[in-house]
């Protein structure tokens, strides 16, 4: 057992996902079995191996760093659940 309920709740807090007690318990079981299963990677000696982050074998060109006007803010705001005078609106942060 790598994780306990406290750790699950701490991770959930970091990921901004609230969990019910039942969800936390189910996840605890699943995640522990997944983490036990991935342990087998420790059998592999990786002492002199460079981590692979990008598998592209061709060189990746860089584009010119230029500003482009693609979307209007009106169009973007259309998808927002709540908006106010050209801004995204959220619950009050400061009292």
């Amino acid at each position: 057992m790598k994780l306990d309920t406290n750790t699950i709740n701490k991770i959930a807090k970091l990921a901004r996902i609230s969990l019910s007690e039942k969800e936390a318990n189910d996840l605890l079981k699943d995640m522990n079995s997944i983490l036990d299963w991935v342990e087998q990677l420790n059998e592999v000696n990786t002492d002199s191996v460079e981590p692979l982050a990008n598998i592209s074998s061709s060189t990746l060109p860089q584009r010119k760093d230029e500003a482009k006007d693609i979307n209007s803010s009106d169009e973007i705001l259309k998808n927002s659940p709540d908006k106010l005078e050209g801004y995204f609106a959220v619950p009050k942060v400061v009292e």
Partner: protein
Amino acid sequence: MEFKSINQLKSLIDENKISVKEIAQTYIKKIKEKKDLNIFIYFDEDKINNQVTEIEKLPNHKKLKGIPIAVKDLFCTKNMPTTAASKILENFNPTYESFVTQKLINEGSLFVGKTNLDEFAMGSATNTSYFGNTINPLSNKDNPLAPGGSSGGSAAAVAADLCLGSTGTDTGGSIRQPASFCGVVGIKPTYGLCSRWGIAAFASSLDQAGIFSKNVTDASILLEEIAGYDERDSTSSNVSIPNYSKQLNSKLNGKTIGIPKEYTVDGISDEINAVWDDAIKSLEKKGAKIKHISLPHTKYALPTYYIIAPAEASSNLARYDGVKYGFRADEAKSLDEMYEITRSEGFGKEVKRRILIGTYVLSAGYYDAYYLKAQKVRKLIANDFIETFKECDLILTPTAPSAAFPLNEKQDDPIKMYLNDVFTVPASLAGIPGISIPYGKDKNGLPLGIQLLGKHFNEQEIFNASFALEKDYE
């Protein structure tokens, strides 16, 4: 009316034997008749008819003029909503068109709708969708089967003849496994061949767009249209795209096909191994040389994948916070509470599980032990392929460890579910191209797929060998 291939339908259009309007009506009727299979998340007759007027104005030299195409609902489309099969993107109307769908539109494709998938492409059965399961069109009434996943809706749409081709995405097998389950062709090209711009991100170092079709020629026609460099995706490769369909060549003389011993796995049915054997013999008969090879780190591919993919997903899915688009829980009193309730109610179980695993393996104190370790093993897996491709041109394996399984089969154990990807994940980690083509059937008459893997950007070689094998079942 059934159209067999893109070339056949295109000739009918070019000779004015059928109009785009008639094609649209034919497919609208078919889709309505198969409504029970729940293949589409979004289907709107008016949206199809509106396209007809525009497409009819296009000149006939547009390569896909009037060709009916279904789009996985992970690609952002300006004229149709995009959900990623998640509640959290309910009512999301993208303000832009994805690179891949724009290319298809430019050539005159007729989009028939947006297909179902596992939520954010996380799954192997199209059973984690917020919009319900898709049923494999090859099922009989008493025993509904899963179409595979995550691109299950796109594979099923081709199998049920509701389009002539569809788009999919493949992160660990999400095109090849459903293609195998539904008895269609599915190709995942080299990482970087098609731009990821406008595709809802799952695991960015693995995600790649690809194609489902009824046959290899159609797959080659569609892939050459959606491939290409795009400056808006920093991992998009600037390579020239061959004219795959014109260069199709079923001659295999001088080609060496590798057969990896690590893909003989316990618990795989004899039928799957028999089909694999048949394909090996057929390739040999067609002039190819068979070479038995070893990819020693194969068994570590799945655990590596299930660290890297959730880690990247947890980062990519941080953007869904209820502020800019999609669903927002309205009972929250503070900003933090709004994030937490929105994400808790907006994401399904499998997505939450992967976000939390990803958050854990990236968190302080665990990063080196999990994420960095996985990236190092990934390097070894990629090196296995590089070494092997020095002595062979292609690798042949089964696509999936089973034929399509029953829809209601219990999926309690996540690791058991993850094993569906055992033959497809290694190629994803190495970024190499892979295809699944139907090759034989099991005792229940369900299709079985075989997989051909090739070197980076060597899709032509894969198409050629598939084209040769396809003839065995014509």
